[in-house]
């Protein structure tokens, strides 16, 4: 008796299931093995009533994933992809962005975001009312230990974080930055000029350019710069506060 060797038999179709998080799964128990993954993706998008979109501002795309992640080669047929298997299970996946703005505009914003979260979770933060109205801007309501009822809202705005010191101003209750009465009286602070002559703000380095290269005074970008500036300011308020500027 002779043994015959026949090529492995593959059925002409394949059982395909594709999950999408916001829809009932796509299921075709009889998808042609000759169909490409790209063609399958088109059918799946139709099944879920989804459309890819490309405009100058936005790109909305969907990707097929398997257990290893994104499938890059959509030109392959279902048969080639499945090999000896007679069923495949995939996912349709997208990236989601929500909010008033798109992704962070720069790496600096991402670093500040991390530092802001650290500050918000720190022990020191219980004395501050923190807000972050923009990617490189932080507001903090602060009070001197000797006058807990007096709240000063400092506005820190970075051009580059953490490479440079922030602009330091105080906001009044209407959000204005040009009101000297929003400022505390502290050594080196000049409410009349709306600036502070200290080595942890951009205005200070503007007044004293020589500080930029002086090892005793230059800006140190290491560590959590946001926490350092807020802490220095809080120490000033606690130890040297002389009242609210009266004009």
């Amino acid at each position, binding site marked *: 008796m002779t043994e015959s060797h026949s090529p492995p038999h593959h059925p002409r179709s394949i059982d395909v299931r594709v999950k999408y998080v916001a829809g009932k799964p796509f299921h075709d128990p009889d998808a042609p093995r000759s169909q490409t993954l790209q063609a399958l993706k088109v059918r799946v998008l139709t099944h879920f009533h989804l459309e890819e979109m490309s405009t100058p501002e936005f790109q909305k795309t969907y990707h097929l994933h398997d257990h290893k992640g994104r499938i890059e080669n959509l030109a392959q047929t279902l048969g080639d992809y499945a090999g000896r298997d007679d069923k495949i299970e995939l996912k349709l996946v997208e990236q989601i962005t*929500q909010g008033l703005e798109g*992704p962070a505009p720069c790496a600096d914003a991402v670093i500040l975001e991390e530092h802001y979260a650290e500050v918000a979770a720190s022990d020191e933060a219980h004395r501050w009312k923190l807000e972050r109205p923009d*990617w490189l801007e932080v507001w903090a309501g602060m009070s001197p230990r000797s006058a807990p009822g007096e709240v000063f809202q400092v506005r820190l705005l970075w051009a580059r974080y953490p490479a440079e010191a922030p602009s330091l101003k105080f906001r009044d209750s209407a959000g204005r930055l040009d009101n000297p009465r929003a400022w505390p009286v502290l050594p080196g602070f000049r409410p009349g000029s709306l600036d502070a002559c200290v080595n942890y703000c951009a205005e200070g380095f503007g007044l004293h350019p020589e500080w930029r290269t002086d090892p005793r005074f230059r800006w140190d970008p290491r560590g959590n710069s946001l926490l350092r500036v807020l802490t220095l300011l809080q120490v000033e308020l606690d130890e040297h506060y002389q009242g609210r500027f009266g004009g």
Partner: protein
Amino acid sequence: MRHWTIPRQLWQQSLEEVGAFGREGREGICLWLARQDSGSNLAFVRSAVLRGPLIRRGPLSIQIDSMLIDRFTDVVDREGLLLAGQIHGHPERFTDLSDVDRAMGFRVPKFLSVVAPYYGTHANTAFRDCGFHEFVAGSDYRRLPEHELALRVTLSETPVAAPLSV
């Protein structure tokens, strides 16, 4: 026309989640799940929260990486659920969807996208304080006017489990 039912407990869970990040000056998001065999009228049965480095929350933006959506898809499917709505926070009183929300959010027909004011930090925030938006097939998101909100969205006392955490 779809009618949505939102359990009070799920609404509270959602505000807790969104408000927790709102208090840090960041947008938070909570996802709402329904059963896969839901009919045209849909009851949310569970909330879900996303954790880890694949979700980034900024003051004006939330980015959810596709690998986290991948993982979330498996968890939701295993539970026999599907994602049918979400709530996220905006600063101040702005409760419309932004251009980013519209273009880069979930764009599946009848998906409900809700925006909570003040980053969701007010625990007593009611439906009428928020912006409710339905994705219309072949079109875009449409905000439900007040009278429609009252007709199509109902608060229920149905208990729900703790949020799914992915």
